[in-house]
């Protein structure tokens, strides 16, 4: 336990010493939200969105921050640690390499929580975006979204062998997937077929889960089922394929 605490503390320090890590997962999502909220039209009711723009974008920005964390940071750190022989070095200590993975996941979960508090809190304070009314429904959406995306990140860390490949794969996944989350084009403006496809992508389902939780108090069964399915498939594959060296 002492070793795990120390490892987690060290991983936190390393995360905070790496501007690229905290910029994209903490600062950028909050900044993007502030930029969107600063546009006057986003604060008026929009017939296209069926709500105000800022209400629409708050969950999208949240899911984007989780995707940045899971697709870039999780594999980036773990593949880097494997590439540098850090995991191998740990495997000849009494502690073993698995705990550095646990420590990393603690750091990333914490980052996701802090970003969520900042994004939701900022949106509520500045522009009266409604906070989730049903805490259980919101927590379910949050835990399932973050866990599923991190499982995908772990899967990437398992199958990719260089940090270069990890960054490349993150780019290939992140930008198209964020389309389905409705980051570039509001989902309401997508052709119905495309919007439906989006519902079955992990980030699309995560966004839907948060929107549902905000609107109805509870995520829809479809979004939960889609997230859970991705989470299980990638989680199991990651556990099977992960190599320490």
């Amino acid at each position: 336990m002492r070793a795990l605490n120390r490892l987690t503390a060290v991983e936190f320090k390393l995360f905070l010493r790496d501007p690229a890590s905290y910029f994209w997962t903490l600062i950028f999502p909050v900044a993007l939200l502030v930029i969107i909220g600063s546009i006057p039209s986003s604060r008026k009711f929009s017939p296209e969105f069926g709500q105000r723009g800022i209400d629409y974008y708050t969950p999208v920005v949240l899911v984007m921050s989780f995707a940045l964390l899971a697709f870039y940071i999780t594999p980036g750190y773990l593949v880097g640690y494997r590439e540098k022989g850090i995991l191998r070095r740990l495997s000849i200590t009494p502690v073993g390499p698995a705990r550095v993975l646990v420590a990393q996941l603690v750091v990333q979960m914490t980052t996701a929580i802090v970003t969520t508090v900042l994004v939701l809190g900022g949106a509520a304070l500045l522009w009266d975006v409604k906070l989730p009314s049903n805490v259980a429904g919101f927590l379910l959406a949050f835990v399932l979204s973050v866990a599923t995306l991190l499982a995908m990140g772990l899967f990437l860390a398992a199958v990719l062998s260089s940090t270069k490949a990890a960054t490349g794969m993150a780019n290939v996944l992140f930008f198209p997937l964020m389309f389905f989350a409705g980051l570039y084009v509001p989902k309401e403006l997508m052709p119905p077929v495309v919007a439906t496809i989006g519902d079955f992508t992990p980030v699309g389902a995560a966004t839907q889960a948060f929107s549902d939780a905000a609107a109805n108090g509870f995520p829809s069964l479809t979004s939960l089922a889609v997230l859970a399915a991705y989470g299980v498939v990638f989680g199991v594959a990651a556990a099977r394929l992960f190599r320490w060296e």
Partner: protein
Amino acid sequence: MSVIVVSDLRKQYDQKVVVDGLSFAVEEGEIFGILGPNGAGKTTTVECIAGLRKPDGGSISVHGLDPQRDAKKLHHILGMQLQQSEMPDKLKVAEALELYASFYENPADWRELMADVGLKDKADSAYNKLSGGQKQRLSIALALVGSPKVAILDELTTGLDPAARRDTWELIEHVRDRGITVLLVTHFMEEAERLCDRLALIDGGKIVALDTPAGLVSQVDTEQKVRFRPASALDDTLLTALPEVSSVERHGQQVVVTGTGNLVHAVTSVLAQHQIVAMDLRAEQASLDDAFIALTGRRFDHSAQ
């Protein structure tokens, strides 16, 4: 007392046999060298001893522990410096040592260790700001931070400049003074000659010879050479008449005498008798290099790595 016993160790990757029936025993408190060219199976051997790789055959015992079965216990008493193993870029020297110390039940005092390896004034330096020599010293300190009974050091001076290499050697001599048994993997003859109490010469996954460095050299009856520049005219027959001398060659002003036995003494005595001053006198004796070539029947590959 033997603390590491390796018997008939075998390991192959795919179809390629890398370790082919190695047996040796390491005594408590000695520096035992494993010397050989690249690809001889040195690293594979020590990685099997550390439990990083599973042998295909044979047995290994480290202080009575089986590296595969008793891995957890072994990691408490064995520290290893791995080839090509780094730390996170932004991790500071003191943090790395404190972290690794927390992994062990009875760790060494990491601050003292940090001073011993000469990194005290680098305590707050990030890993990626360290020089090659400093990184190597940190990795040695990390191998020792758990107060191990056995330390394995794999190619510890590869890529270091000569000054850093000498500092590292001094450090290893201090490690032995602590009573730690050291298993040293190297492909540097000079390093082996300087540090090791005993050496196993490995080639093609087999032990070619096992002895003290001096013992290995004496196994090889190589010829010696004496080179000098005579200050006045010298008749070659004076030298060829000596029983120790087998040949005399001239390269410009330089005379090269080849022979066996106490060649230097024989040559200098004759020169003194005839009052010929020998300038730039050099004697070349057999080294571990020569021993290696003689024992393996091929040249040691210095260019590699």
